[in-house]
């Protein structure tokens, strides 16, 4: 359907050690996974990140921000450095020279996983960036795989009783004025003018929270107004368009870091979404957004403009009855559901014209996205509460309302705040989302078996396949990797070999599977890949 992927920054908290350094705790999480994977894959499945092609200051509107003028948090192309003091604060003095360090003596802050994902310390949070996938079903599977990875790290950390246990939360705010992101990435042709993207996406982003918001207790960045709202993120957005992701957050982010052949592609970096545990909301988030991008590329996005979109975004989020209206520049007043229906109709029409939704000759995904999108909007339009099994903010609200009714709690009661927080605890025995899932109250889009497989296996139909297989198979000889490269250090070769992977749809199983089958050793594998040897006759 389209190359896409997710990024999740987890909330991190050690209840027995409040105030512990978040960056160091995050490093402990990454380190824990390195230990887990070392146990699983002989030779080690962890590989360093290659920062060569990171360009966080390139703006899609055609300029580059001066490093000196950028907020320090924007400089994501430098490996983070931890000083001894920070290490000591989080680990205790005696830990300085051992376990946490790899052979070169520094803490592991960045890993490439055998499933093609990246796991690393982003500012003060552990982040899982999924491998590139081609459809929303796989996006859900490999995003949920990140939650399983996160769970494995939490278990590993908890097993060491000499250090504080760490909880991870798949949410986006601490409700004390701090937010952290859940991002989506979509591959687009560079030829689409960025102005079209801004115009076509803004009304969609103002309204899509009604199907994929994760719900939040409290109104305002610091939650000072009691209440419940649809989105975790809405109150933290302050601009319509911009390069920043940590300050003055914009509805449309212009970071132009394609991680691919730059004159052909752009990677649209979407920062406005909530992290989703609900598979149905997550599926709709990726599926509908991908379809809207197709609308924009075809020049068929609804010709509408929302008046003051930042304000409108918050108006929509603060109204759980879905009856609030926002003003369009043509003077009409419409609800968020009206906006969603306009996009749905346009997307259904385009799919009809191009045939992608055809049950036989279609792409195998568009039909399902359209059908779930339509039924979710229909349900939300007739009885909001009836969408609880498919829409995350409605599901969370049903539990909160249950407590309010049973125990007579006001919205500012700490127990409701706890329900909101613990909804996203990634441990199945503690996370309230998982309690609902176990009770068959949440719709599944992918099987548990698919998620389990996605923890260790890369998607087969993107370059993530090549990256993941290289890491799993040749981990010992892979010294670095990134979205668009894998770097080998093969004994005897004398120099590093950097294999560029700048085409997201190459490096697939179809193109490289046989090559992996033929070679157990990195040297001959590389030699054949780089054309230095004729392929052996036998498979």
């Amino acid at each position, binding site marked *: 359907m389209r190359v896409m992927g997710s990024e999740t920054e987890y909330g991190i908290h050690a209840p027995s050690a409040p105030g512990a350094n978040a960056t160091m705790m995050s490093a402990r999480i990454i380190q824990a996974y390195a230990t887990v994977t070392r146990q699983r894959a002989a030779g080690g499945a962890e590989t360093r990140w290659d920062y060569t092609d990171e360009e966080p200051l390139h703006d899609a509107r055609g300029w580059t921000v001066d490093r000196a003028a950028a907020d320090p948090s924007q400089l994501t192309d430098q490996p983070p450095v931890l000083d001894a003091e920070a290490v000591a604060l989080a680990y205790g003095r005696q830990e300085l020279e051992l376990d946490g360090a790899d052979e070169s003596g520094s803490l592991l802050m960045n890993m490439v996983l055998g499933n093609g994902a990246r796991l690393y310390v982003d500012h003060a949070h552990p982040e899982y960036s999924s491998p590139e996938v081609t459809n929303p079903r796989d996006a859900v599977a490999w995003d949920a795989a990140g939650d399983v990875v996160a769970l494995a790290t939490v278990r590993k950390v908890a097993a060491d009783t000499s250090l504080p246990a760490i909880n991870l939360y798949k949410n986006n705010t601490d409700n004390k004025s701090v937010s952290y992101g859940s991002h989506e990435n979509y591959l687009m042709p560079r030829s689409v003018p960025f102005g079209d993207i801004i115009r076509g996406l803004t009304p969609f982003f103002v309204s899509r929270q009604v199907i994929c918001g994760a719900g939040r207790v409290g109104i305002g960045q610091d939650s000072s107004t009691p209440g419940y709202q649809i989105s975790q993120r809405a109150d933290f957005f302050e601009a319509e368009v911009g390069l920043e992701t940590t300050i003055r957050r914009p509805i449309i982010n212009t970071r132009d870091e394609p991680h691919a052949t730059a004159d052909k592609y752009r990677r649209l970096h979407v920062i406005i979404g909530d992290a989703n545990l609900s598979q149905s909301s997550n599926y709709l988030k990726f599926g509908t957004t991908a379809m809207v991008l197709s609308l924009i590329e075809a020049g068929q996005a609804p010709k509408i403009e929302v008046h003051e979109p930042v304000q409108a975004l918050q108006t929509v989020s603060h109204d759980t009855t879905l009856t609030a209206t926002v003003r369009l520049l043509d003077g009409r007043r419409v609800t968020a559901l009206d906006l969603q229906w306009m996009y749905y109709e346009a997307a259904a029409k385009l799919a009809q014209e191009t045939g992608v939704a055809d049950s036989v000759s279609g792409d195998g995904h568009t039909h399902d996205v359209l059908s779930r999108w339509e039924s979710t909007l229909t349900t939300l339009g007739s009885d*909001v509460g009836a969408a*609880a099994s498919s829409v995350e903010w409605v599901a969370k609200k049903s539990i909160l309302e249950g407590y309010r009714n049973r125990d007579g709690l006001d919205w500012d009661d700490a127990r409701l705040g706890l329900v909101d927080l613990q909804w996203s605890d990634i441990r199945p025995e503690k996370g309230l989302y998982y309690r609902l899932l176990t009770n068959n109250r949440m719709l599944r889009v992918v099987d548990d078996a698919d998620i389990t497989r996605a923890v260790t296996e890369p998607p087969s139909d993107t370059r993530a396949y090549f990256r993941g297989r290289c890491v799993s198979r040749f981990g010992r000889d892979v010294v670095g990797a990134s979205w668009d490269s894998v770097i080998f250090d093969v004994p005897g070769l004398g120099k590093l070999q950097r294999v560029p992977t700048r085409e997201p749809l190459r490096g697939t199983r179809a193109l490289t599977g046989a090559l992996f089958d033929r070679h157990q050793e990195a040297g001959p594998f590389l030699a054949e890949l780089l054309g230095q040897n004729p392929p052996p006759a036998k498979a």
Partner: protein
Amino acid sequence: MAGQEQQQPQSRETEAEVDVPEAPPAAPEAQASEATQGVDDLLDEIDGVLESNAEEFVRAFVQKGGQ
């Protein structure tokens, strides 16, 4: 779609969570509204897994900024 058929109450296979918060038993006058129908029986299960001392736990959850 919302109210699937009720499963038998899940046994609490949770890690030892000694002091369950002092939630009063279901108030008889609490009417299940449409939106919460079928949810109340789940609340008992959730009571058993909620962190104790909600106020302190929520207050201590302080994050550094992110993207």
